[in-house]
């Protein structure tokens, strides 16, 4: 169930089967897919010497090249493919589509292929982005999720989501039992549509029998709005929270006097062993490791300076490419970590985070006072202040006597525009705080975990900045213990008593890198179950608040 490996196998299958000089033709979406998992040297070594967009209509005729196309079967891409086949630029075509083609799409392409240049047509279900080995995203951050209300889907987004999630299941070769959160109308609709699709495409979904069927668990972001609000302290999550990861790339151009080759860096667990080993570690451990990494590099550097014999020389030349790579990697991580560390101290993030965690995990009589104190402080960003008020709102907003309005005013007094404080009301609307008031006793509606954590308790490492575990991790643990109640997490069809061995999670409204880390940890600690997480997009606080704003506008 390693979604990165599966995606890479798709790409290998595409480019290995066709020897000779090749051009790879992609559309906007598949470009993201390919760039997340394949490297240029990998493509070059398989004779892919040109990569182009099918949208580019000024491409030249290059009859002696073979053309591999990997496209999303969207109306636009299929039309562009048809135009291409009418006036083919390349000698032969090998077509791969990332999702199910309709019969008429196939016929229209066949009709356009009057020159008989198409050699192959296949469906490879890579209609998502493989982020980590157990984390995927449908990359729908620019899509409006909601239709006319918070209980309905936007039609286009719904279609796109169904196609994406269906592709995930096909790529993983899973025909799952589907569960959803009872209070999520969107979840129910998605669950029943996926179920319908599986039955419609029963030939495609005909896999080997499992000992016990996998579970697809469809969750709704609104039931855990806390996790995306918290400051993150593990490497990958932290980079996304403080700087932003866009399809595996991090833009560092905002750092003054940055070297040109570090303006945009790639973070890939697949190609960068240091990142692989440290992506889930917290900031403290990371600091130690980066120091060792630098030392290791310096040792190697030192050795390479003392070249005495011809054999040393030969060794040096052999190792130089590796050495150069290491050198690039060291400066990449040092730059990144020092920027993170600069931001942490500049914006007093440790203090903010401590209060955030307290608000998220325990009731504390001092909460209000501390929130007020931090709002009045100067070296704390407006974003952090708003976040704190939002966390206060979730914890205390449903109580009869609360100070949400007073805090809002305090924000305004401290120079935050009234327009920006609107997010508080939008947030209340998004999380349906008024509806949760009376239902606090039922498990699903308590947004906060009760501070109980089996793993942390046992390990005895209580870190004040990482007290909070995401709700999805708690939900999975309940599911594995057989304690996830059918009434709250109903099956769309049938039900199963056996303990699941494979679990696929889909988060409507977007997942976070922090959650991905929690899931990675569960996978590590419980070897007899495999869990994979994904969502409509990947949030940091900023994108999550934009999403809430968008949601509240319907």
């Amino acid at each position: 169930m390693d979604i990165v490996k599966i995606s890479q196998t798709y790409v290998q299958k595409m480019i290995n089967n066709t020897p000779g000089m090749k051009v790879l033709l992609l559309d906007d979406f598949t470009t993201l897919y390919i760039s997340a998992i394949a490297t240029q040297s990998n493509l070059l070594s398989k004779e892919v010497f040109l990569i182009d967009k099918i949208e580019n209509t000024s491409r030249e005729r290059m009859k002696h090249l073979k053309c591999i196309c990997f496209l999303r079967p969207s109306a636009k891409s299929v039309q562009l493919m048809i135009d291409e086949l009418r006036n083919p630029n390349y000698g032969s075509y090998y077509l791969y589509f990332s999702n199910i083609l309709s019969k008429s799409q196939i016929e229209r392409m066949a009709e356009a292929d009057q020159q008989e240049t198409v050699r192959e047509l296949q469906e490879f279900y890579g209609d998502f982005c493989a982020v980590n080995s157990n984390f995927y995203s449908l990359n729908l951050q620019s899509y409006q999720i909601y239709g006319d209300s918070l209980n309905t889907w936007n039609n286009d987004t719904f279609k796109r989501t169904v196609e994406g999630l269906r592709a995930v299941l096909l790529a993983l070769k899973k025909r799952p039992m589907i569960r959803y959160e009872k209070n999520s109308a969107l979840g129910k609709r998605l669950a029943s549509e996926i179920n319908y699709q599986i039955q419609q495409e029963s030939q495609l979904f005909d896999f080997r029998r499992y000992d016990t069927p996998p579970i697809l668990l469809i969750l709704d972001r609104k039931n855990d709005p806390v996790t995306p609000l918290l400051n993150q302290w593990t490497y990958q999550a932290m980079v996304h929270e403080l700087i932003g990861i866009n399809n595996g790339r991090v833009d560092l151009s905002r750092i003054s006097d940055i070297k040109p080759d570090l303006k945009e860096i790639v973070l890939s667990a697949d190609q960068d062993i240091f990142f692989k080993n440290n992506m889930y570690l917290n900031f403290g451990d990371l600091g130690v490791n980066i120091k060792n990494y630098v030392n290791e590099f310096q040792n190697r550097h030192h050795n390479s300076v003392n070249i005495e014999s011809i054999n040393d020389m030969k060794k040096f030349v052999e190792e130089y490419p590796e050495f150069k790579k290491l050198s690039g990697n060291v400066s990449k991580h040092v730059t990144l970590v020092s920027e993170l560390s600069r931001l942490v101290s500049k914006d007093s993030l440790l203090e903010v985070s401590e209060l955030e965690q307290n608000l998220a995990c325990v009731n504390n009589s001092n909460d209000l006072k501390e929130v007020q104190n931090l709002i009045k402080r100067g070296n704390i960003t407006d974003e952090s202040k708003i976040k704190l008020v939002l966390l206060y709102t979730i914890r205390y907003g449903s109580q009869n006597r609360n100070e949400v309005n007073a805090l809002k005013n305090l924000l305004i007094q401290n120079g935050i525009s009234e327009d920006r404080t609107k997010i508080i009301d939008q947030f209340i609307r998004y999380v349906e705080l008024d509806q949760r008031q009376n239902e606090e006793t039922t498990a699903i509606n308590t947004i906060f975990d009760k501070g109980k954590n089996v793993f942390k308790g046992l390990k005895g490492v209580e870190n004040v900045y990482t007290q909070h575990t995401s709700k999805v991790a708690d939900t999975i643990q309940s599911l594995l213990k057989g304690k996830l109640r059918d009434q709250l997490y109903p099956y769309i069809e049938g039900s199963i008593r056996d303990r699941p061995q494979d679990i696929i999670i889909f988060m409507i409204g977007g997942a976070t890198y922090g959650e991905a880390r929690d899931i990675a940890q569960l996978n590590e600690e419980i070897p007899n179950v495999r869990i994979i997480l994904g969502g409509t997009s990947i949030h940091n606080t900023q994108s999550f608040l934009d999403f809430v704003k968008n949601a509240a506008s319907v």
Partner: protein
Amino acid sequence: MSNTKTRPKRTFGIKVQENNSKFEEKFINTNNIIHNEVEYNKRNSTLSPNDNNNNNFISFEDSYQNSNFEFYECPICNEEILGLYQLNIHLDTVHTENKSGNVILSLFKKTQKITEEITGTTKTNEKPTQPVIDKSHWQKSTNDDKCSYPECEKPLGIRNGKQNCYCCGKLFCDMHTNFSMRLSESAKPDSNSPFWYKVCQSCYTSREGYNNTEGQRRNLTNAFIEARKNNIEKLCLEENLLILRLEKLAQLKAEINEKKGISINQKALEQSIVQWKEDASSIQCSICRRHHCRLCGKLICSNCIEDIPLFTDIENDKTYSGSTKSCNQCKRIVFRKKVMNAKEKIPSVVKLYEQIKFNQSIIETILPQYNDILLHINSKSSKNYPQDYQNATKYREKLIKNFHQIDLLSKRILKLPTNSKYYRTLQNNIAKGSVIYLQNNMITLKMLPEKNDVTIINEDIENTKRIKEIKDTLDVLNDQYTLLQGYYQDALFRRKFDNVKTLEESIQDVTDEIQKLKTELEEIS
């Protein structure tokens, strides 16, 4: 299953212990454990025992600290089990719904019912009785067993547990048997079997399809080709018709060309070949100029009309007789075969790349042979040392020559002139790909070891040998020099001055060495 006589054995329901009270004490303890076990299975079956079962386990160990570690026989299947704790797990997992009248089991069932009522998870489907599973392949238990999981090797016993994997039969610790699989009666993985068994991590993760990295695919090539074939058949009829018309038009044009000056009603003649649509028949777009396509006769706007060449014999370019107007759809159809069969000039980059591929194919056949011989020579298992050494030298020379060739070709490709940005990118990337290829294959090419002294007969031979050696080394050094220069330029370009310095020194070293060898070479010859 062997019943070793030396081993103390117990059977449940039969009093085997002399001391009655002691037995009762154990019995009560067992009950507690069963209670715990039920809780454990209901809630915590997800976690490895190391994490969650610690408390149960420790209390169990405490109460049994003084008791000898003994084997028990399961009252239902007569399986021999080490320790009460394991027996309980066995009863729990294997004989869950067994209708035996055994006291413990009925108590267990009662407890289970109660917990089910509390948690509201009553089991609906009654499990059929567990059948006998093949255990003939089980590893025999001794006093000194270690966990068979790779790199675990924990001593097995009361602390780490001891459990046969029902699938492979080997003995494992608790942690590495915390996996369940459905097995057939012959102890093979079988998803259709109604029965779950404890298995080890290796069996669990190595079952078919578990580590699958191939996503689902659907090959639609045949459907596509079928659809295309139907379409092409229809198309051919139209194509032939249009070709006929085109050739007629060409003929017409040729005749007009001959009868220069004589006025002919060209329009009428053209219309005799294909009926033109009435001007009024189409109302679309009255703004742009409209034309009749001379091949299909339809009204076409000026955007979609093109001039096409006319040939009295479409397959023969020499029969060109002029041009006419046609819609681009007809153009595509009428010249379909002409375009498909057109011989295009092969660009130089393609020719050069073919040579690179040729060199690569030679390398790919020789390289494994070279490495093979080298292995023999190095491990001193070579039967015919001089012959092998000579072959290796020959192969090495050939390899180096081909690598060199690839390097030269890729540099030529890089320098090919072109105005097209696409060909420019193509050429750059081919060169880049060649560098990667050389890095992966040439730099890792292993050196030949020093030749054995035995074969040296006289100075003369030694001199020639030395010259050859120097030349070989010089070749390698020259390659390294070129490579280092490349790195140096690259580092300079990227302003990596640390690396620049190191590289400068290295280049100096190589230059010195080359100079030294050259001097030696001159001296010898």
